């Protein structure tokens, strides 16, 4: 139990007086005097605390019973409300079962178990004998294994240790193929029609009136057998039409739109959330995750937020039947930056 200080007057409030030329120094004031609890002195209070602890354990028992009542007693009739009731009762039952035991034990310890203050001296950190002993053990090991005397064993062991982790590289490599150029290309090709998400119907240029916003996927995406979500997560596009005078295309990009209809990647260049909040009067595109804001009239330049690059534009034109089609794939990788992007 170590030093059992009961905090008598002699120990506490002992402050050293600084003598001539001595440095002021606190002496250990010891512990404050031990205070008895109500339950220590009053048997009635002790009895009451005992009943309280028992009641808390009783709550735990009721909680467990409630769990079994919910599990077996509540009839599920395929409606959400009975499932909800059962879940609620299961949760409350388990909760009270645990809480009752926990609070009961804590209350028991606080009110009834002995609460004398105890202090324990710290062990010495290191003795010289221990250090010498440890050194000797290491020396003995080196001697007994004979590793110094048998370089063949030592060198083959080192070789084995170096080679052993190599299979891990193969295993981690098998977690998936490297993305190769998948990050640089999407499903869009020259002549791919722009179709509505999720119905997959093509879009006539004339149907995109000023102020409209279409959520667009490439034609054929819905028919993909595998990799549909991956393809969609790269290829989704937002199609909008505004007054052609409001657009300010840079040289070389004048014909990427069609009569004020422009298509931009919906994948934010920050961390890839779908940028799909379009304010049709201010022509701002907002990302819902971190409030990056892109100005549609200036080729989706970033005007606010953490995104670093403008949204990539999908060059579009109209085919012979009047439907909107892609001129080509995006001219740069869509979505957030990655190491090899350059």
């Amino acid at each position, binding site marked *: 139990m170590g030093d059992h200080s009961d905090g008598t007057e002699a120990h506490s409030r002992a402050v050293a007086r600084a003598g001539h030329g001595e440095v002021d120094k606190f002496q250990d004031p010891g512990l404050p005097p031990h205070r008895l609890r109500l339950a220590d002195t009053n048997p009635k209070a002790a009895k009451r605390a005992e009943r309280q602890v028992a009641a808390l354990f009783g709550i735990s028992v009721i909680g467990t019973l409630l769990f079994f009542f919910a599990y077996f007693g509540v009839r599920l009739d395929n409606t959400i409300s009975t499932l909800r009731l059962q879940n609620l009762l299961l949760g409350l039952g388990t909760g009270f079962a645990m809480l009752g035991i926990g609070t009961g034990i804590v209350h028991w310890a606080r009110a009834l178990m002995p609460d004398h203050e105890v202090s324990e001296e710290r062990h010495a950190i290191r003795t010289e004998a221990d250090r010498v002993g440890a050194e000797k053990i290491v020396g003995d090991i080196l001697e007994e294994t004979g590793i110094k005397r048998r370089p063949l064993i030592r060198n083959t062991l080192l070789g084995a240790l170096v080679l052993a982790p190599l299979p891990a590289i193969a295993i981690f490599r098998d977690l998936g193929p490297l993305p190769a150029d998948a990050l640089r290309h999407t499903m869009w090709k020259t002549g791919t029609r722009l179709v509505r*998400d*999720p119905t997959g119907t093509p879009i006539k240029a004339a149907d995109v009136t000023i102020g*409209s916003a279409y959520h667009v996927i490439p034609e054929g995406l819905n028919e993909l057998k595998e990799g549909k979500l991956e393809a969609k997560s790269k290829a989704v596009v937002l199609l909008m039409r505004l007054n052609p005078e409001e657009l300010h295309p840079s040289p070389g990009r004048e014909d990427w739109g069609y009569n004020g209809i422009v298509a931009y990647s919906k994948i934010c260049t920050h961390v890839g959330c779908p940028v799909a909040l379009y304010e049709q009067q201010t022509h701002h595109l907002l990302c819902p995750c971190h409030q990056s804001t892109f100005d549609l009239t200036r080729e989706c330049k970033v005007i606010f937020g953490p995104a670093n690059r403008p949204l990539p534009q999908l060059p579009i034109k109209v085919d012979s039947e009047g439907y909107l089609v892609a001129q080509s794939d995006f001219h740069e990788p869509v979505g957030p930056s990655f190491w090899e992007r350059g």
Partner: protein
Amino acid sequence: MKALSQKRRHPLAAIALLLLGLMLTGGLYAAATTVNQAKADTTTFSAQDTKEGQKLFVANCATCHGMGAGGSPTGPSLVGVGAAAVDFQVATGRMPLEANGPQAQEKPRQFNETQTKQLAGYIASLGAGPAIPEEHYLDGKGNAATGGELFRVNCAMCHNAAAAGGALTRGKFAPALAGVSSQHIYEAMVTGPQNMPVFNDANITPDDKRDIITFLQTIDASGSPGGADLGSLGPVSEGLFIWVAGLGVVIAFTIWLTSRTS
């Protein structure tokens, strides 16, 4: 036939052919694009409505929108916005505007139903635009599952997946849709009020709009199966709750654990 082949080289033949071609393509184009244009208004307005509407317009709206509804520096032109836009803006109390701000707020309506109809009739008479929707698109008997999918693709990013609304930039916001009448939801889709994009009938067909309305009515009626939804605002309200209430309980237990018993 002989006469035709003789006139083939007539100097005016090329012009005649060009005119014929232009008329043909123009006609086809007009026929093909009518899907965007307002179909004949289903709510019919009498000449009396239009006349009364004009009086109301001059007295209440012309200050900003101009005497002939042609617009002014303070308000946009209303020619061609259609009866649906008027019904949405006036019947939800957004117009007449109470005060300038980031966006017009919903408030108690200032015009009764008859007056709203008269105003709508006047504006509709100025130019074709989206009409007030037919009753059967608003009945909520469409496909709620399809509607939900369309809602998540087209609407949820601004209006929130549970239609609880959300913030835009500089004080603008997408309102919550619970309790908004189906007619106003339909009208908002076809007219694109304020910063909302337009979802014309070529983009989301009237039947699709009916499905979306059905979905909204369904989630309105079914409530929140997961318990208190805390406004369906996602991490904002849920995070606030758990930081205040959850951490509060943890702190309370900590204080209790370390306190002395009397």
